[in-house]
């Protein structure tokens, strides 16, 4: 069997070289597509001063090992996120608590701009002009320009040292197939990190996946972890 990508049986091994101060993308939207075992391994490792890029980072769901739990564990120096606070305004998330204490930097990004910036990082664009955020606080400090008579703002790419992903199946070439809404940030973050680590339910031989349903080609994947739980 051609095995181009290392397949790990332990998440701890797969994250062993994540270093203090690293920038890490953590995929997932709500529960689907969150690489929970990799996040737990990173919490066990306890490496700090991380910059975390993720859709949500409030960390108020203790039963969900998402990016927010890294914040809750005090391992994060900066978050770039669209959900620093839980949707219920009466609940204070961990980023807010730490932000008030001056222990955390928070960059709040409109959600579509967040994934487009990650995409730009992954596909080698230097920046792009969108209308998202015009006339709001999200345009502050950014360059503005008219295109077709409408104001646009310049957004810059995001890249990371590591991306942590979750998919349903990988083959040994690193090709990934997702399950329904599990896809979300995964295919985009897969492109945008120097080292991309995915946890999956199942690893199959090359040829074991339907080529048409591969949403992340193996070129973007560096390590595969066989998840212990579903």
């Amino acid at each position, binding site marked *: 069997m051609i095995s181009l990508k290392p397949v790990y049986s332990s998440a701890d091994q797969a994250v062993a070289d994540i270093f203090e101060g690293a920038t890490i993308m953590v995929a997932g939207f709500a529960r689907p597509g969150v690489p929970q075992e990799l996040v737990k391994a990173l919490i066990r490792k306890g490496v700090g001063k991380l910059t975390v890029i993720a859709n949500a980072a409030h960390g108020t769901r203790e039963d969900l090992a998402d990016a927010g739990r890294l914040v809750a564990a005090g391992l994060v120096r900066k978050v770039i996120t669209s959900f620093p606070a839980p949707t219920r305004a009466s609940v204070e998330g961990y980023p807010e608590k730490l932000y008030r204490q001056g222990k955390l930097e928070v960059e709040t990004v409109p959600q579509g701009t967040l994934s*487009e910036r990650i995409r*730009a990082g992954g*596909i*080698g*664009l*230097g*920046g*792009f*002009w*969108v*209308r*998202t955020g015009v006339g709001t606080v999200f345009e502050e400090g950014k360059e503005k320009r008219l*295109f*077709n008579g*409408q104001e*646009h703002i310049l957004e*810059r790419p995001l890249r990371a040292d590591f991306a942590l992903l979750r998919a349903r199946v990988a083959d040994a070439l690193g090709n990934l*197939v*997702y399950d*329904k809404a599990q896809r979300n940030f995964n295919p985009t973050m897969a492109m945008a990190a120097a080292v991309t680590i995915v946890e999956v339910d199942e690893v199959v031989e090359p040829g074991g996946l*339907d*080529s*048409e*349903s591969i*949403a992340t080609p193996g070129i973007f994947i560096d390590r595969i972890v066989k998840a212990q739980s579903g």
Partner: protein
Amino acid sequence: MTVSKVWPSAREAVADVFDGAVIMMDGFGGPGGMAQELILALRERGVRDLTIISNTAGLDSVSFGTPGGSLPVNHGILVANGQVRKVIASFPVSASPSRPTSFELLYREGKVELELVPQGTLAERIRAGGAGVAAFYTPTGAGTLVAEGKEVRVLDGREHVLETALKADFACIRAWKADRLGNLVYRGSSRNFNVPMATAARVVIAEVDEVVEPGELDPEVILTPGLYVKRVVVRRHPGKIYTREQGAAS
């Protein structure tokens, strides 16, 4: 309420294409990704002054991706028929100067315009058009002819060229199967420009081999969700390609 985007014929599906329209079409070059019946219908309709956005400017002397060296029907027939005013493409001519296409001949006479775009920039400009991105900075083409007249700026220590989004009035795309809601699945290497083009035109017309009921296509494989597609046309000869000489052939 039953939604059906399936139109009875290619001819009817292109009946509102007007003189001067901007049309995106074709996959990569080979007939697998090419909306050949729609192209034939456009020739029959005879609309003129078209701007075509495509990877090529027509391959009417080249047998690209065609078994047996036959010449596939492609938008080169619209160029040869004098219906095209401008082409935005990355591959405007044949590889060999001794076999000029209609486009090259007309270009030398000054009868057609060309906007030459690197292939990746072309795909990304189309994607930007569909994705509400007005413009983007790419390193592709910095320091070359392509950068002339465009903003060039250094970002992250590297020169980038500002490229703007492309949109169209119509996109004539080719997929393998559709359901009647307009969801599309493709086959193999024939996704290429069809997928981004399906997002970037006001009216998207998809030519497919087969239409099935909603629910019959695997949702994981639908690359073009139906919300992008206005019209679906079923090929009269599914699985065949149209060649210049014989009409539909295998």
